[in-house]
């Protein structure tokens, strides 16, 4: 009963939508032939632009805008003018999904840059896939987005329209293990996780890699992230004879854990993933106790990269209020990759954005150029070929980024 009613309602709706689409493209054809031979296509952009992650998101937006302005100024794609349409997802998957639907409904959108959060991208992927719109992120690090939940044992391309220019999480735990074992000379480690997908996964991969190197994970404990008293974990770690701790989890608990370890007289290092790499971890642990926190992070600090110099100077010259942050240069490269894909697709001669979409998806896989963050290119899953992990540490109450850089 309900199904038929939906169907009855759906058919005219779909017909109406089709008619509207037809109108849209006819308008475009008219204007294109009426004025000159240039088309304007829209690049959708999605990131958190308000609330606590706004600083990161605005830096990414500025970087994307910079790439678009440069492409327009240099006529990178002859006959095509780009326009950036930025949408705020508030770091919320449902809002990201709505934004994706809005992009899909906008015939001028040729591709989407974003999102910041892996969880938001996961919600956007299928909507954009159905519309045949390419999505490229400069910040998503969850391996499942490209290779599926069994990304280790049975990797499988999830969506042929999703690409990213940044390294994934599954590379970072083994790097942390290598750094602990070889550079810090630690043979016995206590592993602690917060029982979440991200944290437990990191600890599992760390344990495998560390054991393979010849080290020993002497004790494995879990904390409850809703609590802040980790005395029992600290006691177990201390009596286990571990020389260091690897923590799978996020910075609020990592800071408190490091503080309580030091308070109990444990002075070994604490390692963690990129979720621990946050300025707020230092006041949480206490300026003194924070020393000796080591984290991995995807990519390398752009300030150290010769290739990023022109990006940094152009960003500064543009006079944006917000810093470009960790993901600015990656988003700049992601936007440029999309522009390159449009260039390759437009060569075959199709001016309207809607017709360009499937061609852009196809062209993206073979895009390759030297970007601000180094080599930009994609493997068969849509992941970046540029797999770089940096080690960062807290020293004298401040982060020192990229004390060692691993290329995998």
């Amino acid at each position: 009963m309900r199904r038929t009613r939906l169907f009855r309602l759906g058919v005219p709706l779909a017909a109406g939508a089709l008619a509207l689409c037809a109108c849209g493209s006819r308008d475009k054809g008219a204007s294109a032939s009426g004025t000159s031979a240039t088309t304007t296509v829209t690049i959708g952009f999605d990131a958190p632009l308000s609330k606590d992650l706004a600083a990161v998101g605005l830096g990414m937006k500025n970087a994307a805008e910079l790439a678009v302005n440069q492409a327009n100024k240099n006529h990178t794609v002859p006959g095509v003018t780009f326009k950036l349409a930025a949408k705020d997802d508030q770091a919320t998957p449902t809002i990201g999904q709505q934004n994706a639907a809005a992009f899909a409904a906008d015939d001028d959108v040729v591709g989407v840059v974003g999102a910041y959060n892996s969880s938001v991208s996961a919600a956007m992927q299928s909507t954009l896939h159905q519309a045949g719109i390419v999505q490229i992120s400069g910040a998503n690090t969850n391996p499942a987005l490209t290779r599926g939940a069994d990304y280790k044992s049975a990797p499988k391309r999830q969506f042929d329209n999703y690409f990213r220019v940044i390294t994934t999480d599954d590379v970072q735990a083994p790097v942390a293990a290598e750094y602990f074992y070889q550079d810090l000379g630690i043979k016995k480690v206590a592993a602690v996780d917060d029982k979440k997908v991200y944290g437990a996964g990191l600890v599992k991969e760390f344990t495998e890699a560390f054991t393979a190197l010849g080290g020993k994970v002497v004790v494995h404990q879990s904390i409850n992230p809703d609590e802040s008293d980790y005395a029992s974990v600290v006691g177990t770690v201390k009596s286990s004879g571990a020389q260091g701790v690897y923590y799978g989890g996020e910075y609020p608990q990592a800071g408190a854990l490091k503080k309580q370890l030091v308070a109990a007289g444990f002075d070994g290092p604490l390692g963690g993933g990129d979720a621990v790499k946050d300025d707020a971890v230092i006041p949480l642990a206490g300026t003194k106790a924070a020393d000796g926190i080591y984290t991995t992070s995807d990519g390398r600090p752009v300030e150290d990269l010769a290739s990023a110099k022109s990006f940094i100077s152009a960003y500064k010259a543009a006079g944006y209020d917000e810093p470009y942050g960790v993901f600015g240069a990656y988003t700049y490269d992601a936007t440029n990759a999309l522009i390159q894909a449009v260039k390759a697709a437009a060569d075959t001669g199709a001016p309207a954005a809607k017709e360009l979409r499937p061609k852009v998806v196809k062209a993206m896989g073979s895009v390759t150029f030297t970007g601000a963050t180094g080599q930009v290119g994609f493997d068969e899953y849509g992941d970046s070929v540029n797999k770089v992990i940096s080690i960062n540490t807290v020293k004298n109450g401040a982060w020192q980024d990229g004390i060692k850089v691993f290329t995998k």
Partner: protein
Amino acid sequence: MTATELTQLLADGLILGSMYGLIAVGYTMVYGILQIINFAHGEIYMLGGFGALFVYAWVPGLRAIPLWAALPVLLVVAVAVSVAAATGAERFAYRPLRGAPRLAPLISAIGLSLFLQQVVFNFFTLPGSSMGVTAPVPFPQFETAPLDLAGVQVSVAGLLTLALAAFGMVALTWFVRRTRTGRAMQATAQDPATARLMGIDTDRIIVIAFAIGAALAAVACVTQGLRLGTVSYNMGFITGLKGFTAAVLGGIGNIQGAMAGGVVLGLAESLASGALPHIDALAMFSGSVWKDVWAFVILIVVLLIRPQGLFGERVADRA
């Protein structure tokens, strides 16, 4: 495991337990007089810590002097904020429901608890940051190294917790047993109607009971912040639940029982996560993940054997 390790676990458990005890007193006093469970007590506790943090962050002079010197101010402000919140809650959320069925104040308490959490979540602001707190907030810290007592490490904040809990309990016992108001409180707990006939202003006594519970909870929160380095807007939920458990364990309505229940709970958690891994047969049920399981197993066993709690005697008569 060595004797030192065991002593360390006992010391950690005692400190944690006395913090639970301070919170449990608030539950037990209100229950003893009104037979209602003030489920917003965890949030009253949380507000104390945020009150202390607020003055510390916004009054520039406090950060210039050592934390030792600023601590009395922090404690006074924490107590003031919590007491104000608790008396306000009593006046507007509980007193209008005094004659209502038992469930009404319980629902009111749950609503109040969510309300207070969201107030802090949305409006608590530190200098230089936007309004609202989502993640845990750093609390001022003693920079002194932990004291080493024959191999057992005890932090300064831990010792402070023990000292303040002991002082709080002695002062409270003296107040209830020796002062006029304290005796009026005992009378109200025994029989409010008769107490009113004897000329006791029971409304005033109820407000005082809420205020005392709030004051001790505020002290507990400040010590917790000093010990663990953070306070968060939702910290009251789990800690409040533990405090309530301690109150039931000790025999709800009994003030000394609440503190004892807290200590038993703290020791149980500490030993379950630290000592059980050394017993081979139980090793797989040990570690910090299992500590709450053991704490509640103890609660259930105690309640099966002594339904009135460890020290409860006079609860059954009116409950």
